[in-house]
């Protein structure tokens, strides 16, 4: 049986200047969630900010008529953050590793890599327009 959890849902407009506020709102709610202080302050914030920026820029392509849905589920053992945009989706397997020598000096392409490094598990839906990031609670 799935664990019962508390759920927080946010609908974020397609605007980069709201990313910080949205991340603040979620991080504040998750501070007491049992994540280590660093995971709440750093891992969660960076991963969510990168996922939101990707959703706004690459997913919704900055279309102000579209929104990004954020859903955070806190259970006794996990904190799960879902970020879904209204774009066409992408294939995450095709995103190259930005740390290989020939890509190290590229300007873009580090967002998803950072997310993968900072959370315990990353999943996508089949369409590729929704990311699910899982952090284990301490």
């Amino acid at each position, binding site marked *: 049986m799935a664990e019962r959890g508390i759920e927080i849902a946010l609908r974020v407009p397609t605007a*980069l200047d709201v990313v910080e506020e949205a991340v603040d709102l979620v991080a504040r709610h998750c501070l007491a969630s049992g994540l280590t202080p660093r995971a709440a302050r750093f891992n969660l914030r960076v991963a969510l*900010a990168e996922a939101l920026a990707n959703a706004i820029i690459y997913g919704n392509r900055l279309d102000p008529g579209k929104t990004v849905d954020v859903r955070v589920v806190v259970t006794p053992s996990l904190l799960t953050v879902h970020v879904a945009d209204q774009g066409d989706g992408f294939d995450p397997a095709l995103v190259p590793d930005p740390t290989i020598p020939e890509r190290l000096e590229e*300007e873009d392409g580090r967002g998803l*890599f950072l997310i993968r490094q900072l959370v315990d598990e990353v999943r996508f839906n089949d369409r590729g327009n929704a990311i699910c990031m899982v952090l284990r609670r301490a």
Partner: protein
Amino acid sequence: MSFTLRKDPRGVVVIGVDGQLIVGNRHELKQKVTEALDAGERKVLVDFTNTGYIDSSGLGALVSLSKKLRDAGGELRLAGLNEDLRTLFELTKLDTLFNIGDTTEQALASF
């Protein structure tokens, strides 16, 4: 969030990042460094002593500026990263690309 700019007597342009370096203000930093470059400056130090956060776009802007300065015979160095910011550079292996000083003074002394 804003940037401060000063010229150190040792000939280094020091740009302080107050708050964050993110997708929303990275172009402002690029513009400041490009203006310094156009004015003949070749040594630029970005000071993160008062910076809480850099996102992947901010990291990308630093990579692009570093390349631009190097192509012009100059160098971009960094200083004052807190533990979280240093972790971002280590994870992305950008710590291998940049000369990173622990403090602004240390970075200036070795420039």
